[in-house]
C-alpha cells in the first residue's frame, strides 16, 4: 500500500474550473424529474456562500452509469453545483433515483450520495440524501438504520413546494445542534 495524496481545501476560487454542472436531465432521460435545492450552514447558522456540492446517484432503474460505453449514457448520475454567493442556495435538476440493491440483496431506499466542500474545509464530507416521502423504504434501509434514530431527519429531503415537479429541500449543517450525519466508508 502507498499513502494517499492528502486532501486540501477547495478554497474560494474553485468556480474558475469547478462550476455548475447541475442539470442532469434531458429529453432522453427516463424517470420522474425533480429539483433538489438547499443551503450549507456553518456552526453559527450562517449560510456558506462558497460551497461546492456534488451528487452521485442511480438512474430511475436503480443503476449507476459506471461506464458510458463510448460515452453514450444519457444519464451520468453526477452533478456539481456551487452555492449562490448572495443567497447560499445550490440546486440540481435531476430525476428521482431508483432503488439500488444492498449487499444483503435487499433494496435500499432511493438516495443520492452527496459530497460537500468549501473554503475552510480541509476535507470533504460525505453524506446521503433520502426522500421524506419514502418513509416505508427509509425505515427498512440498511444504511439509514446504522444512523441513530434521532439524527436520521438530518438526511431527509422534504418537499418544499411543487412547481411543474417536486422541489426537495436538503440543507447541510456542518456543525451545531442539527449537524448533518456524515459518513465514513
Amino acid at each position, binding site marked *: *500500500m*502507498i*499513502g*494517499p*495524496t*492528502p*486532501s*486540501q*481545501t*477547495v*478554497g*474560494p476560487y*474553485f468556480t*474558475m*474550473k*469547478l462550476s455548475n454542472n447541475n442539470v442532469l436531465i434531458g429529453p432522453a432521460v427516463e424517470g420522474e424529474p425533480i429539483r433538489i435545492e438547499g443551503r450549507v450552514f456553518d*456552526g*453559527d447558522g*450562517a449560510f456558506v456562500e462558497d460551497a461546492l456540492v*456534488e451528487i*452521485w446517484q*442511480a438512474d430511475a432503474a436503480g443503476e*449507476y452509469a*459506471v*461506464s*458510458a460505453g463510448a*460515452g453514450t*449514457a444519457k444519464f*451520468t*448520475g*453526477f452533478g456539481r453545483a456551487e452555492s449562490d454567493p448572495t443567497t447560499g442556495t445550490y440546486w440540481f435538476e435531476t430525476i428521482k433515483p431508483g432503488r*439500488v*440493491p*444492498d*449487499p444483503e440483496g435487499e433494496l*435500499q431506499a432511493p438516495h443520492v*450520495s452527496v*459530497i460537500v466542500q*468549501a*473554503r*475552510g*474545509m*480541509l*476535507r470533504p*464530507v*460525505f453524506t*446521503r440524501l433520502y426522500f421524506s416521502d419514502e418513509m416505508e423504504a427509509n425505515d427498512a434501509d*440498511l*444504511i439509514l438504520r*446504522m*444512523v441513530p434514530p434521532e439524527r436520521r431527519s438530518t438526511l431527509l429531503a422534504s418537499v418544499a413546494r411543487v412547481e411543474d415537479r417536486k422541489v426537495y429541500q436538503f440543507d447541510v449543517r*456542518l*456543525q*451545531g445542534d442539527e*449537524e448533518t*450525519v*456524515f*459518513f*465514513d*466508508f
Partner: protein
Amino acid sequence: MTTDLSDHPPFRYPDYRSTIKRSPDMKMIEIIRTLTEETGPGPIVADLSSEDADLTTNAGTGAAAIGERIIVTGKVLDTYGGPLPKTLIEIWQANASGRYTHWRETEFPAPLDPNFLGAGQCLTDDEGIYRFTTIKPGPYPWGNHANAWRPSHIHLSLLGPRVRSRLVTQMYFEGDPLLALDPIFNAVPEHSRSRMVARYDHQVTVPNWALGWRWDIVLEG
C-alpha cells in the same frame, strides 16, 4: 474497508481560521459499502471529457501567457500502486503575479494577465500518466493572519472510480520557503505533507522551452 484518515488534515485546524466554524463536531458514522459507495463518477465523467492541458495558450487570445513556463507531469495511482488510466484532472491556479481570474475582490494589487485564464484539465493515459503545461503560479497574500502568504500552488480536482476516491488537493513546489509558514499546508500530518510537493525533474525539462516538475497523485477508494 475503512480508510485511515490520518494521512489527511483534520477538519478543524484553528491556525487556518475558516475551519473553526466549518468543521463537524460529531463523529463520522461508519457504514458498509453498497453499490453506491463501490461506484463513482470518475469513469463516466472522464469518458465525456477532453483535454485542455496547455494553460499558457488556452485563453484563446492568440498570445501566450506571461510568466515562467512549466510542465507538470506524473502518474495517478491507486493505493496499491496501480495506474489509474483515463482519469480526469481539473486544475485552477493564480497567474505568475499571484492573481486569480475570478470575480471575487482582492486587495492584492497584482496584475491580471489577459492571456491567462488559469484553468484547464487533462486526462491520464493507459499508464496513468498525465501532463500539462502552465505558468508557475505566484504566491499571494491572504487574510488569515498578519502578513500571511500562500505558497505557490496549483489546485487540482479528481473524481476517481469510487465516491471515496474524490480528491481535491493543492500541489506545491519543492524548496518554497513559504511552505513552512502556511497553515493550510501544515494542517496535513507531517509524514504525508511531502506527498503534496512536486520535485524539480531535469528529465522533464524541455530544452529552450519549459522547466519540468514531477508529481504523482494517489487516490483512495
